[in-house]
């Protein structure tokens, strides 16, 4: 029989499946971290995980609560300075997949993590860009994980923090970028991929039990669906067991903060 699962587990499994053993991932905390380690502990044992705190080839036994948890350094092949991380490893083109997310996303997968409202008179001041601008420019491709809602999937961003496909089409190429940009947008409802021509993010796979109407009701632009639309395979029992063990270990290590 198949175990019941949560929307977050579905997102995490879908993201993990997109990774393979040849990938070098620039990992953020929370869901991307869970997805990368799930991949490492299941079908992609050779995957290399890099966190911006400088830890290279880290194999954490529990998930980090912060980008610089001691666990990441203690289980890493080595740890370099942050300037070296951004210069030699990220900008040097060593990273195949970078994970991003944000408070707002548009149909071309541009992201906003800086401000809601006007920059100099913010309605809501968000944390800022972190490494997102260069991650979006320098990683071979970008996977975005976000929960869908009309508040976050918007027709127009208040501020562009990191570049997706810009205004679409060959915008990235016109800016001189050779990297692919966002190739997957994984949500709690479905998976989007860029249209080959327009680069607009298009639904290619819908999670089990989710309807096209639900997706449209939670998206701030008219959603395009791929012709060969499929259903996302539910998380397997193996994926769920490994992921839940990982979270359980993390809870034991960090207590209720995990």
């Amino acid at each position, binding site marked *: 029989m198949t175990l019941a699962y949560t929307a977050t587990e579905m997102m995490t499994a879908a993201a993990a499946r997109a990774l393979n053993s040849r990938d070098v991932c620039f990992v953020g905390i929370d869901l991307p971290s869970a997805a990368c380690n799930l991949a490492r502990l299941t079908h992609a044992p050779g995957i290399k995980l890099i966190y911006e705190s*400088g830890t290279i080839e880290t194999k954490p036994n529990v998930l980090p609560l912060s*980008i610089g*948890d001691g666990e990441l350094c203690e289980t890493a092949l080595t740890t370099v300075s*942050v300037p070296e991380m951004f210069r030699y490893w990220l*900008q040097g083109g060593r990273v195949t997949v970078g994970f991003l997310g944000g408070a707002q996303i548009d149909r071309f997968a541009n992201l906003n993590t800086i401000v809601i409202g006007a920059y100099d008179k913010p309605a809501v001041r968000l944390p800022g860009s972190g490494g997102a601008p260069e991650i979006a420019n320098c990683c071979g491709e970008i996977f975005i994980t976000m929960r869908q809602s009309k508040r976050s999937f918007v027709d127009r961003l208040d501020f562009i923090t990191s570049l997706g496909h810009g205004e679409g089409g060959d915008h990235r190429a016109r800016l001189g970028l050779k990297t692919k940009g966002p190739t997957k947008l994984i949500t709690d409802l479905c998976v989007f991929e860029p249209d080959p021509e327009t680069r607009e993010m298009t639904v290619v796979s819908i999670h089990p039990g989710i309807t096209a109407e639900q997706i449209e009701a939670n998206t701030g632009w008219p959603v395009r669906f791929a012709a060969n639309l499929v259903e996302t395979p539910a998380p397997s029992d193996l994926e769920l067991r490994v992921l839940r063990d990982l979270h359980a270990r993390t809870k034991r290590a960090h207590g209720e903060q995990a």
Partner: protein
Amino acid sequence: MSELMSLADAVAATVSDGDTVAMEGFTHLIPHAAGHEIIRQGRRRLTLVRMTPDIIYDQLIGMGCAEKLVFSWGGNPGVGSLHRLRDAVENGWPRPLALEEHSHGAMANAYAAGAAGLPFAVLRGYLGVDLPKVNPNIRTVTCPFTGETFAAVPALRPDTAIIHALKADRAGNVLIEGILGVQKEAVLAARRALVTVEQIVEDFGPRSPNAVILPSWTVTAVAHVPGGAHPSYASGYYKRDNAFYLAWDAIARDRDGFIAWMKANVLDKGPEAFAAHRRRLAAPAEERS
């Protein structure tokens, strides 16, 4: 040559009103005790520089020490917003806070350029985004060989860099190990440097020939403050106080609660308070350090 001083003397010797101060530490080794001392000494009009302003700068900003923030990510990691930072930016309380906002890559390169004696840093980034529209310090340079355009930002050259490290030796040299962040670059880029340490040793003893060490002649003052990174951590000495990061959200949410907490835990206390946190969160020495 660095001088060993009390934290109070060290801060008095290195931080004045109006200074540009960079307090670094990337999750690991955040110099919280030094931040508290700056607050106790009532410094004002500081330009605060830090890649990841978190609780340490929420406290300095909420207590009115800062007039400007140069940064690339401001939040309570894994928890949420910094309420004092947002109150200053959104409502000007307790005073307005000017922002100079960059990306992590730009900040890291700007420290490296400062350490390298260059006035600017060059990076591949900022393409197709809005930050250059709101930050006049993001400009461009053209490669004289390929004609490609790259982003340029001014080097960071703070008046004072403040970091927390694991050990200093009797000669005043400082050893950093584990997650290194931008601390070495911040110290080498600054005019003055204050380093708080967990431990003073006679000699660093057997170590990698390539250990990350700041020679005493690159540091102004060293202060021995066990636990001085709390609620951040010091690898091999104590763990990160994740519960405190969560608790901070409620403490900082409203102005009165924040002020009351700062009075009880910072203004009415001294650096020795940090030793108790270290004992409470003591970690077994790491295998590899």
